[in-house]
């Protein structure tokens, strides 16, 4: 493949809702998925200074159709977003959805077809349609949630034979990492704590985050004076030894949106545009890694393609998000990308280098754990954060120096490594 974009493409608007629970979280409580989507889309269109009728196409992301029951999402959302009669498609790449949408939108613009494309992702991982009601929802059980989520995992031989996400994505990767770099289980545990503490700190500075409580405050709430004591307590069991519960994703409902446009027209928009410099996408079925659980070939390919298309090197990256459903996996990816030194990611976490004000800032919105994870909407939330950071508009968690180049890596479940590179214009 030639792996180039024949024309320059920019993000001219971004939007993202509060990530939480449609049945509980005040900011989004009782909203329909149509309204949740519209909230993100409105923010993105307003940001770009456009209306739904100004876009040429709508790429509508939603992964778990069993909970949303809104296939043909392009048409079901069209009267809620003002996009009637535009081109459209419903798509999913699970937790990479919105950024795979960004890549598809970029190609549609660089091909010469469309000038402006709206991409959105919406998901409810917490509740489902109740009976046949057009507006009532009911909570999903833990098992139901995983049954539907794991439908994205090999249905012939993976799930039927005892596949377990916590093992595959956390425990085995952690052990591979410790063995490879000679790290003790105790040091691993301390490093994971520090990483989670950083993510919780970021979440506490983000009014849209699913969890806005710092680890210190959580400890206090439980009557413990020390955050590490909280970390090692029964509040944080091993879900796949040596990985603990708080190194994992928290599920959420949410929506995100972005407006992509030709770079030559983006500057006349309402907000500071950001250029799509490149992307790389590579899918793989189970197992996601060979003998070494820290090296994922699909990520290697995606990173290589994105770097090649954008022409950047690891040293150019000012802000990085790597997919962190599993915190240890996210660190492996950051090392793979070259943002962190091999085997030194836990040190970096302990030294505070991964904080918004550190020299290797990562996931400043709080990541999948603190910001929360709403499958098809999440990659868009990562891009949203990157754009805010690049514009210097990230509020309390703003990096001291807005990054010139941001890289966002996501894992679309089961499995698709996706990397996008954003640059200032």
């Amino acid at each position, binding site marked *: 493949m030639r792996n180039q974009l024949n024309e320059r493409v920019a993000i001219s608007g971004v939007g993202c809702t509060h990530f939480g629970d449609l049945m509980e979280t005040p900011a*989004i409580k009782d909203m*329909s998925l149509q309204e949740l989507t519209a909230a993100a889309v409105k923010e993105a269109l307003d940001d770009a200074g456009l*209306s739904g009728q100004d876009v040429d196409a709508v790429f509508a992301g939603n992964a778990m159709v069993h909970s949303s029951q809104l296939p043909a999402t392009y048409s079901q959302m069209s009267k809620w977003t003002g996009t009637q009669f535009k081109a459209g498609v419903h798509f999913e790449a699970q937790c990479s959805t919105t950024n795979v949408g960004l890549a598809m939108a970029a190609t549609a613009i660089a091909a010469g077809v469309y000038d402006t494309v709206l991409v959105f992702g919406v998901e409810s991982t917490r509740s489902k349609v109740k009976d*046949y009601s*057009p507006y009532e929802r009911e909570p999903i059980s833990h098992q139901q949630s995983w049954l539907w989520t794991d439908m994205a995992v090999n249905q012939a031989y993976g799930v039927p034979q005892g596949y377990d996400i916590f093992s595959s994505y956390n425990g085995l990767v952690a052990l591979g990492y410790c063995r490879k770099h000679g790290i003790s289980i105790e040091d691993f545990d301390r490093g994971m704590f520090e990483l989670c503490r950083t993510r919780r700190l970021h979440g506490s500075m983000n009014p849209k985050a699913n969890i806005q409580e710092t680890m210190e405050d959580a400890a206090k709430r439980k009557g413990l004076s020390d955050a590490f004591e909280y970390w090692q307590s029964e509040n944080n069991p091993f879900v796949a030894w040596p990985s603990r519960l708080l190194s994992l994703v928290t599920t959420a409902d949410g929506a995100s949106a972005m407006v992509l446009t030709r770079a030559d027209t983006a500057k006349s928009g309402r907000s500071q545009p950001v250029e799509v410099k490149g992307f790389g996408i590579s899918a793989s079925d189970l197992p996601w890694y060979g003998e070494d659980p820290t090296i994922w070939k699909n990520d290697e390919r995606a990173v290589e393609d994105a770097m090649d298309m954008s022409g950047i090197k690891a040293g150019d990256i000012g802000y990085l998000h790597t997919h962190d459903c599993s915190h240890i996996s996210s660190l492996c990816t950051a090392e793979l990308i070259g943002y962190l030194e091999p085997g030194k990611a836990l040190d970096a976490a302990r030294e505070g280098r991964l904080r918004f004000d550190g020299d290797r800032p990562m996931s400043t919105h709080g990541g999948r754990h603190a910001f929360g994870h709403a499958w098809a909407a999440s990659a868009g939330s990562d891009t949203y954060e990157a754009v805010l950071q690049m514009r210097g508009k990230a509020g309390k968690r703003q990096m001291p120096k807005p990054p010139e180049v941001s890289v966002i890596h996501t894992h679309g479940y089961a499995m698709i490594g996706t990397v996008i590179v954003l640059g200032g214009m």
Partner: protein
Amino acid sequence: MQATSGKPNKIRWYYEGLSKGVFRASKCSDCGKFTFPPTGCCEHCGSWNVEDAELSGKGTLLFATHSGSDASHPRFEKAAPFVYGHIRLEEGPIAQAIIQGAEPTPEDLKALYEKGPVPVQAVTLQMDDLPVIAFKLQD
């Protein structure tokens, strides 16, 4: 348009209206057109500047056919087959809905077709789990 929880949910609001015989829509403050049933955005011009509105329920039945005899949804098992029509509402929107006042037979439908457009009035059918809009022939 506050829903029971205190948050906006236009869909719930629509059905709550329907259960009281009120036909809710939204109206665009920019282009003046109605979006029916209501959303938070104008389906015509894309403006977010829309207001809650009520429709009269008056309309004209343009064409009428019938549904399948086996309901495609459990909600309508008792009702199927029913006459189903294509309606122009007084305020502009086009709607398709269950029609009352004719039988779903070729004879009745042919008579309706030959008669041409006829006035109808919206009514509420209370199904087991949800109110549903229908239009009643007016002559």
